[in-house]
């Protein structure tokens, strides 16, 4: 029996993904160890006492191994069959959070499980959303070229995000945007991506360029477009209306929407972080939240870019080869806040330098490309879509996390997959990856 089950586990399993997974988890524990290492207190036994973060992470890794084996032992059909049910369960959990939720660091997104452990449903929901989206897109009666299907797919992907925003977890919500990559692969018009990027570019331009100058530039672009397309415009009056509409929209966003959002929707520290990422300083006195607090005669401390600055110092001081394992002065001095979770990349950058970072990012890229390779060899659409979901989620997390530590992206509380300390995050990614490995093992099967 055991022999049979063993052969059934390993049969068709993609060992490369598993090895990359194992190496990354190992690196993660090492990084957490570097952050917490204290030569005075350290003994070999402290790896197993479970009162330090690295030993806890080791415990989580052990749980993950059990979970992974359990998933590999399960039947692939289970995931297609229960995808929708899981999704409903996930949404229910997130709704339940509003009632049962515990306030941690200002966000009400945790459900206490007792024993010091907390569950973050938004994190778990990624799995369920991925499954549900795969299920929906792989259904035979779904024609994804239709707008209706696109809206439904987007709704499936975005509902947990909306709930997350309501729980003040903007970072987690952003992660759900990665599902657009999947939808793009499955036939979402490329124009939507282009529009999305253009919008992003416009927002960044608004922050970078002086408002009047940008307005003039936009007007000139619009005028130029009309001039070059004058023949088409003469033939089709609607085109002119569209161009003018786009121009009005852009200028509106640039003059009113963006300043409004930064001053009234975001809190001061959020605006400051975004401004920092593009290297500018935000004037907090314009912020309505700040104004309100100041009206209540509270002195508002101006948030500064301490985190990013220290993070960049730590990574930058690594040089080519780094300072060596456990020799990072910034890491030992605890200069980088939240270094074991969101800023774990800094310890790696300091200790192993550019070469270390390059190899590390290379491992990630290999994993991502391997997953896309796996996706493309699936016979069933469900598995393919699911694989793309995994790749997209991983990609989004890695990009945002690494970019924020090196000062290319505003600081958002998004963990580095498989590396950052945290049970929820590690378990989620383990389940995500091993469901894919399970599905891939049955790639010859057509799952519905």
């Amino acid at each position, binding site marked *: 029996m055991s022999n049979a089950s063993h052969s059934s586990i390993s049969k068709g399993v993609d060992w490369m993904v598993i090895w990359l997974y194992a190496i990354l988890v190992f690196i993660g524990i090492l990084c957490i160890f570097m952050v917490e290492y204290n030569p005075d207190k350290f003994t070999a036994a402290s790896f197993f006492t479970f009162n330090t973060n690295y030993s806890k992470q080791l415990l989580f890794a052990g749980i993950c191994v059990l979970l992974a084996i359990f998933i590999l032992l399960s039947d692939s059909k289970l995931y297609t069959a229960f995808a929708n049910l899981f999704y409903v369960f996930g949404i229910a959990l997130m709704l339940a959070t509003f009632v049962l939720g515990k306030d941690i660091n200002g966000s009400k997104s945790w459900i206490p499980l007792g024993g010091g452990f907390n569950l973050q449903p938004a994190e778990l929901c990624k799995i369920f959303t991925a499954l549900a989206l795969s299920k929906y897109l792989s259904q035979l009666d779904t024609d994804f070229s239709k707008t209706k299907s696109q809206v439904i797919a987007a709704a499936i992907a975005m509902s947990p995000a909306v709930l997350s925003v309501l729980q003040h977890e903007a970072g987690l919500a952003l992660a759900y945007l990665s599902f657009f990559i999947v939808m793009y*692969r499955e036939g979402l018009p490329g124009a939507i991506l282009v529009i999305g990027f253009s919008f992003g570019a416009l927002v960044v331009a608004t922050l970078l360029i002086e408002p009047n100058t940008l307005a003039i530039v936009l007007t000139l672009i619009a005028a130029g477009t009309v001039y070059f397309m004058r023949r088409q415009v003469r033939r089709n009056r609607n085109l002119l209306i569209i161009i003018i509409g786009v121009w009005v929209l852009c200028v509106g966003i640039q003059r009113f929407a963006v300043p409004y959002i930064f001053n009234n929707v975001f809190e001061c520290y959020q605006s400051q972080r975004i401004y920092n990422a593009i290297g500018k300083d935000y004037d907090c006195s314009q912020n309505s939240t700040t104004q309100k607090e100041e009206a209540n005669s509270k002195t508002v401390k101006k948030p500064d870019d301490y985190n990013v600055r220290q993070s960049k110092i730590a990574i930058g001081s690594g040089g080519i080869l780094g300072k060596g394992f456990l020799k990072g002065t910034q890491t*030992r001095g605890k200069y980088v806040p939240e270094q074991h979770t969101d800023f774990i990349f800094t310890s790696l950058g300091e200790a192993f330098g550019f070469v270390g970072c390059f190899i590390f990012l290379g491992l*990630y890229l290999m994993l991502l490309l391997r997953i896309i390779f796996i996706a493309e060899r699936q016979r069933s*659409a469900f598995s393919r879509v699911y694989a793309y979901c995994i790749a997209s989620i991983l990609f989004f997390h890695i990009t945002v996390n690494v970019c924020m530590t090196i*000062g290319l992206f505003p600081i958002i509380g998004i963990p580095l997959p498989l590396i950052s300390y945290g049970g929820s995050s590690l378990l989620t990614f383990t389940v995500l990856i091993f469901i894919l490995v399970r599905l891939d093992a049955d790639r010859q099967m057509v799952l519905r």
Partner: protein
Amino acid sequence: MPVYNQSRSRVIQLIFIAVFIVITAQLLNLQLFSSEYTIQAENNAIYRKVVYPDRGIIYDRKMRAILENTIMYDLMVTPNETRGSDTFTLCTILGIDTAEYRKRMVTAIIKNTSYKPSAFAPLVNQEIYARLNENMYKFPGFFLTERPVRTYPYSVAANVLGYVGEVDTTYLRKHKADGYQMGDYAGITGLESSYEKVLMGQRGVKRSIRDNKNRIQGSYENGAFDTAALAGRNLYSSMDVELQQLAEKLLGSKIGSAVAINPKTGGILAMATSPTYDPNMLTGSERRKNYGRLVLDTARPLLNRAIKGQYPPGSTFKPMGALVALDEGIITPAYGYPCGGAYYACGRPVKCEHHDAGHAASLRLALSHSCNSYFSNVFRMAIDNPAYKTPQEGYLKWKEYMNAFGLGVRLNIDLPSEDRGNIPDTSGYNRDFGGTHWNSCNILTLGIGQDRMLATPLQLANAMCFIANKGYYYTPHFVDSIENENIDDSVYLGKYRRKHQVTNISAEDFDAVQLAMLDVTLSGTAVGARIDGIDICAKTGTAQNPHGKNHSLFVAFAPKDNPRIAIAVVVENAGFGSTWAAPIASLMMEKYLNDTISAKRLPEVDRISKADLIPAAIKHWYAVKDSIKLAKLAKQIDADKAPTFENTIDNKKHTFDPEAEPNRKDDDNSDTGKAKSPAIKPSEKQLKKPSNKK
């Protein structure tokens, strides 16, 4: 359907790769192309601490330490940890009030933040240290740290040894290359300053890692970049500390100086200056206060008169005048001059102490009787020497001799700011006489060590050295050798190991002068300076000066045939050379040569050391200063009685003023004049109060 969107897989892969390239580019930028992050990281995390080595010790010639190190304690405080401290007890022990406590606390926080320790009471003395130490458990957040300070076990030779002080900006600018920082200590005067580089040793640097709250986490790279502190090297000096003590004792209550040199080596055995001070006053916590008091003292105890006091040498110059004349062949030892009590050849007579005929019948007689006429005449003969065309040329030749004798030039002793005395230049006379219209008569009294001639006691002692050695001397110095001496130290000691030949005066000429100087103690002006069994060659001097009573001078060396000590003593405004300077020198020579002073002369030591020869003007200054103090005291007692709190503080401040605010002295003078009569009254009334306290 899947085939339809196959190309988009490539697009997605390209997006992934593009993003990774962007990240790599930024990593390259951060890690390879900007060095600022490495520097910032070091500033962040590496704490450089300078480790100060022990300063070198200075020993005397019998290997007794005369300047060494001891430990004092700084009371340090970490302000954010002081919750629950027994402030009252602390203030009582330190003798401060709570306002002062709060002030110091605020200063500490401003200086060093409340997380880092800073000095609360620097350099507490032994007694306070003991009381603090036993009560330390009551003062969380406070701790005592050791701090090495200099100590002078014999409390002598303050002006020779010098002191260390905090470096100021001027010093830092001058010594940029030596790595001093603000707050460092360096030798300010004396040997401490001259041998600063030897004594200070080599500072070490310790690098440690600190965390974001500035707490030290451990050493950086296990100390791979640390440099060890090298202790300063010791100095072995020629000083005889017992002789130094005796000299300072004998010069007590006088203004003057005594210098004793070993003529064989040039090593200085004793260099006393009076008034002096206890060098330990400038080491402890009272340093600033004491320094202020010393600087203001009108008798100038910080002035080393042995190298900075410039006196007309008077008759002590006569042996040198004789040497010049003998060497030039102008006179022979048999030459005599018919002195009748004064020298009349130049119009205005120069008086002589002796009237009896024949007291200047030969060089020997003239020198032992110190005949002014004789040496005036000899001097004129030297200047008007027919070998030179003009008196100016004759004078230049004479001046050449003087400079070779070490007069009018700096000797380059190993103490800073030595004065050169004065052998006047022809240009000075040319200016005053409108060209070369001057002759030997105009500058006549140079021949008896007056006119514009000035010499330091050190120069006079050095002159005795070359007469004792019959023609050579070694530059006087204190430091004979340096511990672990190396080739680089020749900068310091090389010049003290070179023999200076003083022209080519023959041994016969020296013999003649020495014999005459021997007669000074046998039958001449300094019979009282004789020591049984020792041939002392000496010369007294009574120098007229514009500052009041004559200076009392005495120069000597002994024993005649194997000279071991050469000495010069100057007592300002004390009268005849034989009355004060001679016995002081004699006692010092006896002490050095016989290692002890004979019992019959011990009362003499007592008599001389107690003799008060301080000029009246200076005494008056002290009296005024004391009366100011008394008046202040009276005021303070009065204020203590006053009920208001403000008044007390006001008056307390006032009493500390004379040290802190030198400029106010004059005002205070007038104040006391007016306030004298009322000031007495309260002090009478208050007599009860101090007695109650007992």
